[in-house]
């Protein structure tokens, strides 16, 4: 019971601390003085450098999903609906979630490790004592870059994934690229695309927030850096699913499903 209470206390304390961290981000958003050069650099580091990984996993995911779905659809005689099923699944759910999970694995861990290492080597303190706000320079920009880059990566990941699916469809039959995409787009509505895109902003924000929070608050030397990187990935991955669950409920309530 004592262990449960202590864990509960720890959970509430951590939640409060993360909320304050997020509050600081929003209060800084209202102040002028954004360093656009640094934002572009972070967008390049966070977004562009994640593209090969997101592209590769998206391609394999599209290909495998098509190959796995085909036997079931064959059973019911609706094999021709394969592009539609894959398209809807990728755009609405699998694309955003898988891209976010890959992004969390790459970006949250690197943010946790980089900021954690800066913290234990007193680089963040050095910034602070020279009168530079480390939250504005290091944290705010990284969270903003993650929030802006994940939707872009998701769109690119979805396209690459659908190309993988196109190859998957063509393993057993012959379908033109034009027909494949026409079939998908004819069956996709704005209700499929818009909510999926909106939630990626929240995924990106959560990943940036947790990665930065864990790194910025790491301690206990090098062990703390490892632990910050690890817990950043675990917590941001869990948050992706929690946000996804909430997003489904909200789109349901709004009648967009």
């Amino acid at each position, binding site marked *: 019971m004592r262990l449960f209470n202590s864990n509960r206390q720890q959970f509430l304390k951590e939640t409060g601390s993360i909320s304050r961290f997020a509050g600081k981000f929003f209060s800084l958003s209202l102040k002028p003085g954004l360093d656009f050069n640094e934002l572009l650099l972070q967008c390049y580091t966070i977004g562009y450098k994640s593209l090969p990984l997101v592209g590769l996993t998206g391609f394999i995911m599209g290909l495998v999903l098509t190959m796995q779905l085909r036997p079931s659809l064959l059973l019911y005689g609706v094999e021709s609906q394969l592009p539609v099923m894959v398209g809807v699944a990728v755009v609405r759910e699998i694309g955003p979630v898988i891209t976010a999970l890959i992004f969390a694995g790459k970006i949250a861990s690197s943010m946790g490790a980089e900021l954690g290492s800066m913290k234990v*080597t*007193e680089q963040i*303190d*050095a910034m602070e004592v*020279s*009168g*530079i706000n480390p939250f504005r*320079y290091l944290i705010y920009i990284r969270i903003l870059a993650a929030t802006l880059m994940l939707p872009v990566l998701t769109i690119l990941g979805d396209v690459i994934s659908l190309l993988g699916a196109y190859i998957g469809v063509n393993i057993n039959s012959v379908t033109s690229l034009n027909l494949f995409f026409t079939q998908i787009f004819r069956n996709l509505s704005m209700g499929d695309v818009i909510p999926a895109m909106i939630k990626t902003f929240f995924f990106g924000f959560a990943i940036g927030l947790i990665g930065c929070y864990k790194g910025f608050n790491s301690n206990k030397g090098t062990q703390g850096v490892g632990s910050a990187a690890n817990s950043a990935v675990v917590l941001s991955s869990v948050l992706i699913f929690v946000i996804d669950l909430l997003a489904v409920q909200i789109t349901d309530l709004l009648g967009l499903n």
Partner: protein
Amino acid sequence: MEAQKQFGNRKVTADPVIQIHHLFKKFGDHIVLSDFDLKLKKEENLVVLGKSGSGKSVLVKCIVGLIKPDRGKIQVLGEDIFRLEEDELNKLRTKLGFLFQSNALYDSMTIRENLRFPLLKHRFPMSEAEIEARIIEVLEHVGLKHTIDMMPAELSGGMAKRIALARAMVLRPEVIFYDEPTSGLDPVTSREIATLILEMKEKYHISAIIISHDMACVKITADRIVLLLEGRCYAQGTYEELKHSKDRNITQFFN
């Protein structure tokens, strides 16, 4: 007000640039600083001496606002630092320099970028040429102009310490804090760093608080020494005064 006091063989003015009153800080049940008082005069090199874990680093981190004390008042250059807004505190910090024990150089930046960073971020009215000239000037002063395009990881311990000192100096601070400036260095390099600290004071008329265990460094740099014991200012005086004290708590540092 501008009365002169003689400490050792160097002149310092009596105007305090830092005043600490009844500072109290504890971590859990462990009291680190208890009713601690201190004054740093203009152009004075003040060494804070004490055993490991006696709260010397906590003291300087309180002074620059990195750690908030539980009680007490700290005035830096006439400002009560815990009453300042964040922007005001950051403005005040541009007049302070800090040499970290670990050097704390930004390891993803070259030496030039390490030195440019504070100048650019504070948007001082300086042209690119003036910024470059300032960087060259401080690097020449520490004798490491040739390292300008190197990364911190490529430097030796002594070189990294000098670069950290150059970075602390680049904003032309009025007060500088040295946290164990010679720790981990060989005796020759330690003496060079100590001499450099003294040169900085003489050239730029800087006041300084130096945290050190290295008595050779203390002897070279100190105008006045404050001995921190059990969270309080146990004794103070010049190097010679404390060295010839009969109190074992004091003389143990000199033997």
